[in-house]
């Protein structure tokens, strides 16, 4: 039985690799934590006692070679093998300069080489994959460079005219269509990846904005829930009043449901099934979203009312992008409305189905945009523009909500129309037009 041995492969690009190798390189043997010389001693003939270098010579393939087996060199290894005096089949030589070459010692060497071979296979697997990727990417990159080089040469060539005033392009400056196609495909894939990443970041930003805006509401709801639970507990403990306890638990249950609605609005918006392009029935979708919002906003006496056409409204879109639009609008309105006195705090959402487009007509009955944005409401669509302030008049808004809406709508070639805010003294008005052909 051979105790644990740690074997490391020195990274190819290691810092001060040669110094490190000379000091720590080689595979050393320790018996009961005492070095057994001369195994692994640098600059000695027993440094490479496993004969890794000769093994390498027999199979010289590079690490990314598609068929050949890559072998590690003796000077690329460092490690320690720990044995003990109980390994009686590995006795020391009489002159204390090594271990007697017993059959068991040979088995130990074979075992260590087998372990190293596993590491070699692992590394070669990864390097082959990286090499394939590199070739694919640099292939497109090579073609791109070739296209640029030839385009430049062509430009220089067309500047010179022959004696007949004609400039036929030499053949060697032509680009094969298949090569150009490869470059184009590679660029398109990059663009698609970036667009997907951008979409996901937008929905995460919306989630972050909503969570940040309502962090105090979360804390308040948590406090309410805790109060109801502790009241129920004390009703049983001190008053032995089961009815009171049940009443408190029922109230706790209602608060628990509001958490479910919060999660519906925030966390669930990044669910995988909402991130795929599909045909969405907007009436049901918006209705569900507004129901979730109504549950959380009812404590602040804010109500969302909706109006839909009679027919179903089918729209091909990413569902989470519709949520981005509505969640940001509702978050903004709710933040303003919750601090207002008054009987009716209302948000209105109307869905209109026109021949060539879908229209989301949004408004609230709050104080409207700040005077700085009244004359030019489109300014609020720029990033970092906000009129949300705290009681001390300090800007506390992120300035990203309306910008996220603008970016999302533009992906659909849509329009965000804020012009009604110029003429209305109260309330916030936003009309979003989404063309049906995406």
């Amino acid at each position, binding site marked *: 039985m051979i105790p644990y041995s740690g074997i490391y492969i020195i990274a190819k690009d290691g810092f001060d690799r040669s110094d490190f190798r000379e000091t720590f390189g080689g595979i050393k043997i320790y018996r009961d934590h005492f070095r057994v010389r001369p195994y692994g001693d640098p600059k000695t003939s027993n440094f490479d006692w496993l004969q890794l270098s000769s093994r390498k010579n027999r199979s010289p393939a590079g690490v990314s070679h598609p068929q050949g087996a890559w072998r590690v060199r003796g000077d690329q290894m460092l490690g320690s093998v720990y044995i003990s005096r109980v390994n009686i089949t590995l006795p020391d030589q009489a002159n204390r300069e090594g271990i007697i070459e017993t059959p068991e010692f040979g088995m130990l060497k074979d075992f260590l080489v087998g372990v190293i071979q596993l590491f070699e296979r692992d590394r070669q697997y990864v390097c082959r994959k990286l090499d394939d990727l590199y070739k694919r990417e640099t292939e497109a990159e090579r073609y791109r460079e070739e296209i640029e080089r030839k385009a430049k040469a062509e430009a220089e060539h067309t500047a010179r005219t022959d004696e007949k005033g004609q400039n036929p392009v030499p053949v060697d400056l032509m680009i094969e269509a298949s090569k150009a196609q490869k470059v184009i495909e590679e660029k398109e894939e990059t663009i698609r990846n970036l667009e997907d990443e951008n979409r996901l970041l937008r929905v995460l930003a919306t989630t972050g904005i909503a969570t940040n805006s309502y962090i105090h509401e979360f*804390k308040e709801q948590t*406090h*309410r829930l805790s*109060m109801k639970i502790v*009241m129920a507990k004390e009703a049983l403990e001190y008053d032995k009043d089961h009815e009171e306890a049940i009443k408190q638990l029922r109230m706790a249950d209602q608060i628990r449901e509001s958490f479910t609605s919060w999660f519906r609005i925030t966390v669930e918006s990044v669910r995988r099934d909402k991130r795929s392009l599909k045909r969405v029935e907007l009436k049901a979708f918006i209705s569900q979203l507004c129901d979730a919002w109504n549950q959380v906003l009812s404590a602040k006496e804010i109500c969302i009312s909706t109006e839909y056409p009679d027919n179903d409204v089918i729209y091909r879109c990413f569902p989470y992008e519709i949520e981005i639009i509505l969640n940001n609008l509702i978050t903004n309105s709710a933040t303003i409305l919750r601090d207002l006195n008054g009987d009716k705090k209302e948000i209105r959402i109307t869905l209109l189905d026109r021949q060539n487009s879908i229209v989301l007509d949004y408004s609230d009955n709050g104080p409207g945009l700040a005077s700085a944005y009244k004359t030019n409401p489109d300014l609020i669509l720029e990033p970092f523009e906000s009129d949300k302030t705290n009681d*001390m008049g300090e800007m506390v808004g992120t300035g990203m909500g309306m910008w996220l809406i603008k970016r999302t709508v533009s992906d659909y070639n849509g329009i965000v129309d804020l012009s009604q805010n110029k003429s209305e003294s109260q309330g916030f008005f936003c009309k979003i037009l989404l063309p049906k052909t995406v």
Partner: protein
Amino acid sequence: MYIVGFVDNSFDLLPDYQTRLSRHGINLLFPDAGKSKPEIVDWVLQNDVRCLMVDHKLRPNFDYVGTDLVAYINSALPDLPCMILTAYQQESLNENLVIKNMIESRDVLDASDLSDFCEELKQAVDVFSKRLDMHEAEYRSLLEAKKKDTISAQQEERFTYLYRILRAYGEVDELPVELLNPNIEKKMDSLIGELSELLTALEKKKDGE
């Protein structure tokens, strides 16, 4: 029973707070919405509140924030212990109107064991009551001086202030109106008269020279 007031924006949890605190011998009272700051002070005095907790976010039911109200009450009733009890601790701290030690998280009210917090409230009430006793002693000595007409103008003001506070808390009996009228005017007339005589004497002396 220890009487503690709580000025809060939302009222739905106040009955629960009352129930919990009453189990520890504390009677929690809360004012109606819409009171101004002076009205809150009157409410404190009328209800014999000896320690006051205030939420930070009071809008829209009140026209000010909690730290504003505490700063106002501290000037009107300097000895009344006031504490901000809120979920918006950082906002309260940022306003720099109430010291950090007097800002507490509202979550303390939903703790399983309220004993420590209730002991703090009771100790605050005891401190205030002790100070009222000290004020009463001062008031009585000033009353004696007033009766003997040996009270100065500054002491007169102090006397009036102490009487108002102690009377509001029911610590002293009502005084006759005559004793409440300040002799300040009389003293000022006397001082002006003496000054006038001095000026006349100086002018005569100057003319004589």
